């Protein structure tokens, strides 16, 4: 049976970090939104999870390490998983850490870079550019507990991400979805998704993917 592949490229909220718990505590595959997406889309789709806690759009993190840079990892990652029909990018929250000192519009520019890189790499069917969907993460809550110095000023900026991302998506002509329209962050730490939010996000993205419209497949294998 021919299968389509979707790469879910994200941060801790794609990784499935449990809100307010230790760094190693992760929701199971069926609870994380890519898992929800898999069961919603069914067997004709192959859902690839690539969620790294602390991942930024284009920045080496001076504290957490250079490997948190989404831009340097996207190329080997996308190429490893070819052929890709769709790439979903949900990033931006970590770019709002005070150490990067970036406004929301600059985070959107980072997302734009990733789109350019994907177009150059063309990991889609027959060396084409896959469909790309930008997902704006839900806004950070005002109370981020012990993270408040790291995320100083971030809640306010995070509320601007959806509009800035949508403008970027419209400019570059890619799909866009605002996760904040179907779920919000959990109060336990203020910036991670709980199980219910993963469920809602996975189901909504499945509908968005379906709405793109996929012509009957001609590709063999």
């Amino acid at each position, binding site marked *: 049976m021919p299968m389509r592949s979707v790469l879910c490229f994200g941060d801790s909220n794609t990784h499935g970090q449990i809100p307010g718990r230790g760094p190693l505590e992760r929701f199971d595959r069926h609870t994380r939104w890519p898992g929800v997406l898999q069961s*919603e*889309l*069914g067997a*004709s789709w192959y859902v690839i999870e690539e969620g790294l806690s602390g991942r930024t759009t284009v920045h080496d993190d001076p504290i957490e390490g250079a490997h948190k840079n989404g831009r340097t990892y996207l190329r080997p990652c996308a190429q490893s998983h070819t052929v890709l029909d769709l790439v979903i990018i949900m990033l931006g929250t970590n770019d709002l850490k005070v150490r990067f000192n970036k406004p929301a519009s600059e985070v*959107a*520019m980072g997302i*734009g*870079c990733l789109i*350019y890189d994907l177009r150059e790499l063309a990991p889609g069917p027959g060396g084409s550019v896959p*469909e*790309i969907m930008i997902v704006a993460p839900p806004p950070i809550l005002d109370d981020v507990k012990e993270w408040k110095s790291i995320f100083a000023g971030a809640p306010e900026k995070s509320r601007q991400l959806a*509009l800035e991302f*949508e*403008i*970027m*998506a*419209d*400019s*570059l*002509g*890619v*799909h*866009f979805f605002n996760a904040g329209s179907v779920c919000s962050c959990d109060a336990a730490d203020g910036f991670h998704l709980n199980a219910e939010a993963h469920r809602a996000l996975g*189901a909504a993205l*499945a*509908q968005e*993917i*379906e*709405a*793109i*419209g*996929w*012509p009957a497949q001609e590709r063999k294998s």
Partner: protein
Amino acid sequence: MPDMRFAPPNPLRIADRASGLNAPTVRSYNERLVLSLLLQSSGISRLEIGEKTGLSAQTVSVIVRSLEQEALVSKGEAQRGRVGPPTIPLSLNPEGTFSVGVSFGEDATNVALIDFVGKVRYYAAHPYSSLQESSATIAAKIEEGLSTLPPDSRTRVAGIGLAVPDDANTSGQIRKLLGRDLADVQANIERRLGLSVYIQNEITAAAGGESLFGMARSLSDFLFFYLGSRLHSRLILNYQIHSGRSDLSHDVGLLALLQGLKKHGLTLSDIGSTNFPDAAGELYARWQEVCCRRISVSVRSLLSFVNFKSVVLSSYAPPVVAHDLCESLNKELPDISFLLGANSTAPKAIGAASLPYHSRFMVQ
């Protein structure tokens, strides 16, 4: 020199992020293409839009999102398939925009307010005898129609259309009401109501209305007859309306029938009633035969030049009259399908109301 790939974003869509309709000038060709398609076939998917317009999935996604935000397009009920997530059909939002059309008949001026899918939301006929002779009166009558809209919808009015007869047909009453200069009327109404005003020949407008919302919604080529006081026609090829010598009309219309009936003390609405006298019945049959012959002569002669399969007959005549005529035409020319116009309430006024839509939302 910066890398221009990373210049500030320049969105494809120019959608104002505030609510309400965008300014008339900014709608892109591709947006119009999608809207035109949705008007022809409602309840289609983004995949079908892409296939029919040749636009990429991502472009369709951007445009549809923009149109949804403007509330011109709405999502339908999710259709659950055998496998996978449900698909969501797209349609025009009937409440997305409204338009008012004004036409000028023999005895009265008609005002119709329609929604985005052509449904008549308000209709009134004002006899000339009840109207003051100035364009301020027309503006006031349009305002009466607009005031039936809920306040939120008032900002969603696309404009006003006026369907006017050609000069030669203009009766003294219409000329008194409109004055000699249509540009003045247009400017006056625009100033009073703050809405764009579009003017077109009334028969062309009626044909445009049928083409946009009516029986001819999915027809690219058809011949259009307007049966009013007189009989008029237009040829529509590839969605373009062609008028020949624009003042050409035939005296086989409802006026001729009405004059005959008057001699028996009857009117159009008596046709088909049980006490319709035999003498009048003969007269009606004779009128129908003449009218039918006139139409079939036009159809036959045009068929030797262009290929069309449908004829739309539009009229405000009582349904029984239009229906009888259509039936005898179908007998006369069995290879052509004769369709009754759908906008029978006020074909010209509804056609007039379609003008702002043509101009602001549709591919020309």
